[in-house]
């Protein structure tokens, strides 16, 4: 069928060629679609009734399974996204802003019509492991199944059992508010073909049981890579296992690298300090704020000491990298004369900051963090500093730090220019060697609120 059987004038052969080309193109597109669809169905579970009952039959004591699921839901911080502010627990309705529009979290309570009441453990497992909903729709990776894919079937079943033990809340899921083409299932299928593969956690037998447990929690339910890795232009994590840090989209915070000595690298920490930070929100070296304060408040403070020890062991053993900002950062400030901006900042520091953070940036132990030698101060990306000065905040209230001290907001007190000056001062004083902060750096955070 490649040639027309009827003799034609010279010029008439061209449409046939175009047709051939189009047919070939259509074939390629069809093949690509088949490939994409095939890639989207990898490692899918059997949803048949026998398979469902088989897993249910194998389930351990139901009460223990529910309790385990409750614990795992905290480890995964499911509630943070699946509960609207002031809304019923796990009933969804919270808007998660992404660079592509808003994703609305879904109702996880066992209401039959609006929640997951009709979901079998196999449906739930397919959502966690494969990122597909009960009705077959592909799920948006704002739900971090790119991490949750690593969890075991037993843990998925426990989560399912726990969610089914909750009071059913009738609350219909709100539609997502994504822009074209991100709102189409076809685009999502292509994204998944490129960036998602269902995975099963493989224990590393050369490592200890604790390291493996830590790896399972950090890579899987903990979904630490959702923030602590950078994303490409299509929102896919680059090197999610590396935890090399990155900007948190839309929230305008920077999740520091857990592997870089100049950011939040932990290699020289004592494991007890990592545990303290995750459990109490404060440790000898640091305290948490912003999105990590939420993680500690809602998730990690509730983890068992065994699991926290395991996470610490895993994080301690992460291969250390040298962040690019170390190579490019300026010489220590002691070696440079202070700029007029920094001098103005020093005056503001005397008026506004010195009472708590000290004249040498030494802070006050167990109340106010030192600024001298503080890696959160000298991060090359000043986003977190600007956020903290503009909007203030408390460390999370935890059993180990039940009555935290607060940092006042300065958004109504200091101008962008003033905040840039005071931050430039503290980033260059007392041996700190980080670069200046511009009025623009401050303004973009003020505008973003």
């Amino acid at each position, binding site marked *: 069928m490649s040639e027309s059987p009827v003799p034609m004038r010279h010029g008439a052969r061209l449409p046939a060629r175009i047709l051939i080309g189009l047919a070939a193109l259509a074939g390629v597109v069809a093949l690509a679609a088949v490939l994409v669809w095939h890639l989207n169905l990898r490692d899918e579970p059997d949803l048949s009734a026998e398979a469902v009952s088989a897993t249910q039959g194998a389930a351990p004591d139901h009460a223990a399974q529910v309790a385990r699921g409750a614990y795992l839901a905290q480890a995964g911080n499911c509630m943070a996204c699946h509960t*609207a*502010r*002031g809304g019923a627990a796990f009933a969804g309705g919270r808007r998660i802003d992404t660079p592509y529009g808003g994703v609305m979290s879904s109702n996880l309570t066992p209401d039959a019509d609006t929640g997951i009441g009709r979901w079998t453990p196999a449906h739930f497992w397919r959502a966690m492991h494969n990122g597909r909903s009960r009705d077959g729709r592909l799920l948006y990776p704002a739900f971090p199944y790119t991490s949750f894919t690593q969890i075991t079937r037993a843990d998925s079943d426990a989560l399912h059992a726990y969610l089914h033990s909750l009071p059913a809340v009738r609350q219909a899921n709100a539609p997502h508010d994504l822009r074209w083409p991100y709102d189409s299932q076809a685009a999502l299928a292509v994204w998944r073909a490129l960036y998602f593969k269902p995975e099963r956690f493989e224990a590393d037998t050369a490592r200890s049981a604790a390291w493996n447990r830590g790896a399972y929690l950090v890579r899987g339910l903990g979904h630490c890579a959702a923030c602590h890795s950078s994303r490409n232009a299509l929102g896919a994590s680059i090197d999610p296992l590396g935890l090399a840090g990155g900007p948190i989209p839309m929230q305008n915070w920077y999740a520091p690298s857990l592997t870089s000595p100049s950011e939040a690298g932990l290699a020289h920490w004592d494991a007890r300090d990592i545990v303290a930070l995750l459990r109490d*929100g404060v440790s000898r070296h640091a305290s948490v704020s912003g999105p990590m*304060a*939420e993680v*500690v*408040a809602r998730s990690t403070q509730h983890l068992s000491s065994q699991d926290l020890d395991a996470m610490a062991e895993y994080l301690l053993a992460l291969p250390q990298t040298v962040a690019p900002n170390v190579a490019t950062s300026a010489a220590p400030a002691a070696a440079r004369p202070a700029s007029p901006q920094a001098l103005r900042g020093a005056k503001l520091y005397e*008026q506004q900051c010195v*009472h*708590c953070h000290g004249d040498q940036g030494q802070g*006050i132990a167990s*109340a106010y963090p030192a600024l001298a030698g503080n890696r959160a101060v000298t991060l090359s990306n000043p986003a977190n500093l600007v956020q903290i000065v503009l*909007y*203030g*905040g*408390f*460390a*999370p*209230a935890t059993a180990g730090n*039940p*009555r*935290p*001290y*607060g*940092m*006042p*907001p*300065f*958004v*109504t*007190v200091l101008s962008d220019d003033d905040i840039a000056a005071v931050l430039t001062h503290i980033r260059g004083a007392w041996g700190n060697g980080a670069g200046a902060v511009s009025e623009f750096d401050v303004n973009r955070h003020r505008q973003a*609120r």
Partner: protein
Amino acid sequence: MKLFSCALAALLAVLAGASQAAPPFEDSIAQRTLACTACHGSQGRAGPDGYYPRLAGKPAQYLYHQLLNFRDGRRHYDLMTRLVDPLSEDYLLEIARYFSSLDVPYPPPSSAPADPAALRSGEALALRGDPQRRLPACVQCHGQTLMGMLPATPGLLGLPRDYLSAQLGAWKTQQRRAHAPDCMARITQQLSLAELNAVATWLAAQPVPAHTRAAAAPTAPLPLECGSATRAGQ
């Protein structure tokens, strides 16, 4: 000598102005809540601009419920929400009790010129309500002296007019909410904007009485059911 340097330090602190005064660090609830007093004024006596209200001396249960309202989205102010979000209910209650326990002087009443007709209308609504519209008077729930009623109803005197009219307006438009049944929502929705402004104007012009504490909890039912007042008793 020591006394002299203390006196000098105190004098310098006064000269530096109340907002600049920095007592030495101590492990106290006042120190822990400097993030609150940065806007709400020293000891929670109110910010200078009429926007950040007084906290000192308000009923603890009222303050506690406002903290929860900001956390749970019934009141909207992003700075407040961010501050209270990571804190436990135990700690929020401790903070509320601390500010409730403070007894600091009130500002003088507003001396801004006001329309006499508005003052008359505001006074009538505050003291007598409007029985024809089944509107209770402010004094029926906020205390005969309008300094609040335990356990959870705030005082209305010693507050700036702008703050009062902003809150009444926010209630009318449902920007500010309380636990259901939301009695203030019902009341403000029956009032015109002119009436809301009249009440705010009259309240802001009243001097604070000598006894500034909230009245004892009522023994008879309130004229309207208020979800926040009911919950506070639990």
